[in-house]
């Protein structure tokens, strides 16, 4: 506003014109004042000089004056309001749109939802004493055939859920995250894992194939490994 005011009284004070282009607020405020008729040197004296020149003008920078811009203000306000509200609406819409794209992050790019129950072939496909890792990527189970029978071990570490790897030479499952170790039976024996790996329900389907059902799990520490579905006798 201070820059605009000197523009209107052009006829009176030609010195005021060169000032605005500099656009230095502090300098522009201080500069013109001494040039104005010898009156108290403060910010106020500028306005009385401006006012007489303004009253009839259609669209002056009326903000500093307030009262004199009477007739023009309602329309101007309407005009301002419409642009302002338009700007605000646009701004809010853009914000909402931008934020709503974050909702997209709630839906993972990779979905891992394998079937909960699946067939994995005939029992004689599994060697005695071997840990079979062929289904670990697809279904997240290890199939182990022990002298007592076949069981399906979960590949989720009971510590914080990483996937341990089977080390054939060392005959143990070893978790890469914090070093928990599990025997072939699934019992934890080293590292921070607090309980053994879980086993899944395993049974024989009508066609003679092994059927693993991951929706049913058996936990050793609850004494569930002795339940009928935890082991498939062969």
């Amino acid at each position, binding site marked *: 506003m201070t820059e605009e005011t000197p523009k209107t009284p052009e006829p009176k004070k030609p010195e005021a014109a060169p000032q605005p282009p500099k656009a230095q607020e502090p300098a522009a405020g201080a500069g013109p004042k001494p040039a104005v008729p010898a009156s108290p040197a403060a910010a106020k004296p500028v306005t009385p000089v401006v006012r007489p020149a303004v009253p009839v003008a259609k669209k002056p920078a009326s903000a500093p004056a307030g009262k004199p811009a009477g007739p023009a203000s309602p329309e101007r306000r309407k005009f301002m309001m419409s642009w302002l509200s338009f700007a605000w609406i646009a701004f809010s819409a853009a914000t909402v749109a931008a934020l709503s794209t974050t909702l997209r992050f709630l839906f*993972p*790019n*990779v979905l*891992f939802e394998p079937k909960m129950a699946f067939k994995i072939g005939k029992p004689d496909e599994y060697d005695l004493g071997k840990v079979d890792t062929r289904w*670990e*990527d*697809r279904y*997240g189970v290890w199939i182990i055939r022990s002298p007592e029978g076949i069981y399906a071990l979960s*590949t989720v570490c009971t*510590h*914080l859920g*990483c*996937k*341990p*790897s089977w*080390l054939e*030479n*060392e005959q143990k499952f*070893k*978790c*890469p*995250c*914090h*070093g928990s*170790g599990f025997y072939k039976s699934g019992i934890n*024996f*080293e*590292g*921070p894992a*607090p*309980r053994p790996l879980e086993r899944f329900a395993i049974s024989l389907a009508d066609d003679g194939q092994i059927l693993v059902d991951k929706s049913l799990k058996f936990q050793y*520490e*609850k004494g569930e490994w002795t339940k009928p579905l935890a082991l498939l006798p062969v």
Partner: protein
Amino acid sequence: MDAIKEAINSFCSPVAIFTTAIFMFALFMAFPKQMTNKWVAGAIGLGVVGFFIFGMQDAHFKDIVGKADNLPIVGMIFIFGYFTWFAMKKAVENDERIAAGQPTWEKTESEEKVLVFPYLIYIEFVIALLYAAALVYWAILVQAPLEDPANPTLSPNPSKAPWYFLGLQEMLVYFDPWLAGVLFPTVIIVGLCAIPYIDNDPKTSGYYCFKQRRWAITAFMFGFWILWLVLIMVGTFLRGPNWNFFGPFEVWTAHKVVPLINVNLSEFFYIKWLGIALPQNWFIRELPGFAALFIYFILIPKALERTVFKKLYERIGAARYHILIALTFMMIALPLKMYFRWAFNLKYIIAIPEFFFNI
């Protein structure tokens, strides 16, 4: 060359590293004047730099240290080393000034006033430019360590947390996930927030000093250096496949076998010492653990309150004292449990897998 590497490798183990770090730390806190002396500090700094230069000759060492993920840690070692030295140096100077009855360094300096603009702003501006340039170069020269899309059936070996969480991951080796993953981080944050309310003595604010704040500074630095930074360094550089510990010049192989049989306190107590089977009831079984915790967290603080910390207790009052003691004892319990693991293969003090509750 190889003999030196061999020696370093065989010296390195979690307990050796941790103990060395604590020893260095104690030395630093006990003799701050000598340790911040420019010759001593310079020698230590050069030693670290020299070690890195020596190590970089080794292909394997270079591989690990030069990894894009690990560069911030290398920077961290030097940056925090420098600033710790700097603050301590100033503190020692001020301690001497105070002892001699002179005003502190900050007081003398603040008597002479200069304008923020341009003196401070210019410095800040130049530094900001340098930082921006460094970041741009870093981003251009080092490839971001991005990996394949997430796959729940595939855990990279070793699987490492982001570098700033490696301290927590290292703690997870020794503690139950609920403790190391949830309780400790919470207590650390709440505890840090609580510091200004526990220690509300305004006496030494506004200048570096050590003597007047010896215990506060030591406790904080212990938590920061030993329990956070050292653990991050160990987790970054010395934990390899299967989260096994590897010396700095050891090749990371997934087939390193480290026998780690861990035993719970209850098993120690009943089977080893009493020679009987574990009780069926979990409460009776874990009674020794509960007793140990009770002694550690209740009886010892109570005893200290009457004796060693009597003055402290009177000065700061019951509420502050108990919060302070609880936080401090939890902090000490952390390395304590780690030492128990190293010394006795102790797994959990209380182990109730029935409720998923282990300490």
